[in-house]
């Protein structure tokens, strides 16, 4: 029997595993998290009583359906939670767990590794109390913790209002929602967004619920700085009429939409291509998610499509595996999934116009702002390194000279802003500035994982 491995226990990974299990392939499901669900449909840690219906709102039914789908295949798959895939070599995955490092071999590999927030730095963004928007949601769903008592939600993302609403429902004080995209841009994107009327209406309902609750909702703001002595005390913004406004708060959730976690795909040999809409480098796939020989990609780890697209693309990738293994499945269903994934991902591209990545902000950043928080490299250090004779104008060389992107996160946080900074400062198109090359380990691993291997 063929050995099919799925990496990632979110909606894409679970639906892929379900489809493979239904064809008695007994797939291996590796998940870095302790509980399945990914980021969006994350189940709370055991022992934590959270009202998931209230928290998930209109998405509660999907949350329960996905968790139930997983429960129903639990004994038909080899499920390994708390397992980090840190390297890929040929058809071997190197995995790290609390017990140590080991290997998992595969005949076919489905990567459904999800996405993370895209961040544009601003003065004060490294103060304690500033969290990524997704991090703010994870803290709530996984641990039942707020990132603060008085929280400002800032940036531009469809998740901004959702996260703010979740915090409000559970009793946090949402001091403001500051969206950097002007309302006009959202209105202009509306005709395309109407292609998914339910999703659009859901977005509008988040907005109106927050407004009814009296939360200050600002659009078209410029985030000026986050203030605080030793931690967040306030965020200062310039509103769309040019007035400076200060919101006292003890935490800031910051995000500009999501970026695919494509490191493993790249290590596995996927070809990376520049995508002009998202201004990111994305793995190249066919309509079913094939990215190379025995390599399949699904969900937000390829291109941001949201949870519904993730579920559909997970099943689609699994069906591609079945086809390639010569196993009979309903091809007409695959055709339907293909259309659905295409439509949902196209919708997300329209969303990118309603929630704009502020690429131009990077040139206004003052020299003292930290760009790389792991290595504490400032915007000015990067500009100075580029300005000197024989200075670098490619992101990997900028990294080599300045250390930007060399730290714990390996550029997962600062990478997009670094690309923008290098391109804008060199006066070249962003695709000419290159992208940070990935190397194992894709996430840090302790020396102690090696020890167990030898014992």
């Amino acid at each position, binding site marked *: 029997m063929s050995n099919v491995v799925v990496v990632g226990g979110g909606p894409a990974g679970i639906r892929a595993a379900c489809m493979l299990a239904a064809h008695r392939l007994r797939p291996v499901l590796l998940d870095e998290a302790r509980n399945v669900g990914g980021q969006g449909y994350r189940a709370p840690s055991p022992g934590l009583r959270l009202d998931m219906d209230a928290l998930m709102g209109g998405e509660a039914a999907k949350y329960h359906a996905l968790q139930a789908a997983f429960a129903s295949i639990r004994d038909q798959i080899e499920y390994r939670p708390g397992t980090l895939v*840190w*390297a890929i*070599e040929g058809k071997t995955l*190197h995995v790290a767990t609390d017990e140590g*490092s080991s290997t998992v071999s595969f005949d076919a590999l489905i990567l459904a590794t999800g996405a993370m927030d895209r961040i544009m730095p601003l003065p004060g963004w490294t103060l304690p109390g500033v969290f990524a928007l997704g991090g703010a949601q994870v803290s709530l769903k996984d641990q039942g913790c707020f990132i603060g008592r008085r929280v400002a939600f800032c940036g531009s993302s469809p998740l901004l209002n959702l996260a703010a609403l979740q915090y409000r429902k559970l009793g946090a004080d949402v001091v403001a929602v500051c969206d950097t995209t002007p309302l006009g841009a959202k209105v202009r994107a509306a005709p395309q967004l109407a292609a998914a009327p339910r999703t659009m209406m859901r977005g509008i309902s988040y907005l109106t619920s927050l407004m009814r609750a009296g939360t200050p909702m600002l659009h078209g703001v410029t985030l000026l700085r986050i203030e605080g002595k030793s931690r967040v005390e306030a965020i200062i913004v310039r509103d769309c009429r040019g007035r400076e406004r200060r919101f006292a708060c003890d935490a800031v959730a910051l995000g500009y939409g999501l970026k695919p976690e494509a490191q493993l795909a790249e290590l596995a040999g996927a070809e990376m291509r520049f995508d002009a809409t998202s201004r990111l480098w994305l793995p190249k796939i066919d309509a079913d998610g094939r990215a190379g020989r025995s390599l399949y990609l699904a969900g937000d780890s390829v291109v941001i499509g949201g949870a519904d697209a993730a579920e559909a693309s997970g099943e689609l990738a699994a069906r591609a595996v079945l086809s390639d293994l010569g196993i009979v499945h309903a091809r007409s269903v695959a055709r339907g999934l293909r259309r659905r994934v295409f439509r949902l991902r196209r919708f997300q591209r329209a969303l990118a116009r309603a929630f704009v990545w502020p690429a131009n902000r990077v040139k206004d950043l003052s020299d003292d702002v930290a760009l790389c928080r792991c290595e504490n490299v400032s915007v000015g250090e990067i500009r100075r390194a580029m300005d*000197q*004779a*024989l200075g*670098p104008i*490619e992101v990997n*060389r900028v990294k*080599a*000279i300045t250390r930007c992107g*060399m*730290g*714990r996160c*390996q550029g997962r946080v600062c990478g997009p802003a670094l690309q923008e900074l290098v391109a804008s400062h060199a006066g070249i198109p962003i695709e000419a500035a290159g992208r940070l090359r990935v*190397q*194992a*380990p894709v996430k*840090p*691993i*302790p*020396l*102690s*994982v*090696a*020890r167990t*291997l*030898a014992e």
Partner: protein
Amino acid sequence: MTRLIADVAVLGGGLIGSWTAYFLARRGKRVVLIEKGVVGAQSSGTNFGNLRLQGRFPGQYPLSLRAQDLWERLEDLIGDSCEFDATGHLYCAFDEAERDKIDHYAEVSESYGIRIEHLDRAQLKRRFPWLGRKVIAATYSARDATANPRLVTPAVARVAKSLGVTVVEHCAVREVRKSGDTFHVDTDTDLQVECGHVVNAAGAWALEFAERFGETAPLFPAGPPQFVTEPFPYFITPSVQTVDGSVIARQIPRGNVILAGYPRTAADPILNRAPVPPVKTLAAMECLAEVVPALRSCHVIRVWSGIEGYLPDMLPVIGQSETTPGLIHAFGFCGHGFQIGPGVGLCLSEIIVDGHTETPLSPFAIGRFQQEIEVSDKFKREFDAVRKTP
């Protein structure tokens, strides 16, 4: 077509080429430094950064000491210390046989005037209490040092440029030929150079230039597995090396521990790839945790390697061509070129300007490969995937 008339064309903008260009410019020579990519991006920029005096090939000490003297004056020479740090170097033995080996290395070092301290277990426990019990003895050389390889070569090239060197990046040499006393260097850009001397410092890519002039060496590309940890408080002051080569580690003052180890892995200079097999990373992690047990819980955040040129006797090729007057080779540094880099540059500049150098370079002549050469023990031990050797 841009035609440049120069005294010297240096092929390869690595550490060797950049220092050679620098010293030639200081002697008033017109130099063109040609690099296919960007300066200092290959093994010059990806190596471990050791400026180690202990345990070198005996015949290399005059060159090595000359180089160390230059490193110690780095800031005066180029206006930037590039994180040069006289950290000292601890050469560690795990058993009596290894102790004999480091004692023998120490004798050689001492015969060249290098001060070596011989430390037994009790002394090690006092001086370096973080060392694991597996280390039974070590020799310590205080003059050994480290520097940041990512910064040095671009910094040297920048100063060379300010001294008048024409530095050309993203330019690959296509053809080198000689007519009369003049070399003609053609590139894949519109640049053409005519010059009286050519320095072949093209690293793992150097062989094609030697072979154009009827010379060869069994050069092959490889690289060591390297990794770096997250930063934590600074306590490992010297660079630490085990004589079996399993651990070569140093902590930088900002806190990260950098490790290089053996065995090295074959690299691909055509695709520009230097793979790091995960199993080697794991093996090196385990070795490091034995030598410095306190590191057990710290995280590895990144691995890398580089494309270095190796030769079976683990000695570089340095010196004049034996077929073509005016052509000078400096390549195949077998993973230990960083320390001697500035010394090599200085010697080559002397060969070109004065016709000779006082520093003995005869062990490194390219002609040695015309006879059967002895394959080094190091070579046998430190590689696992080796291309066919003569």
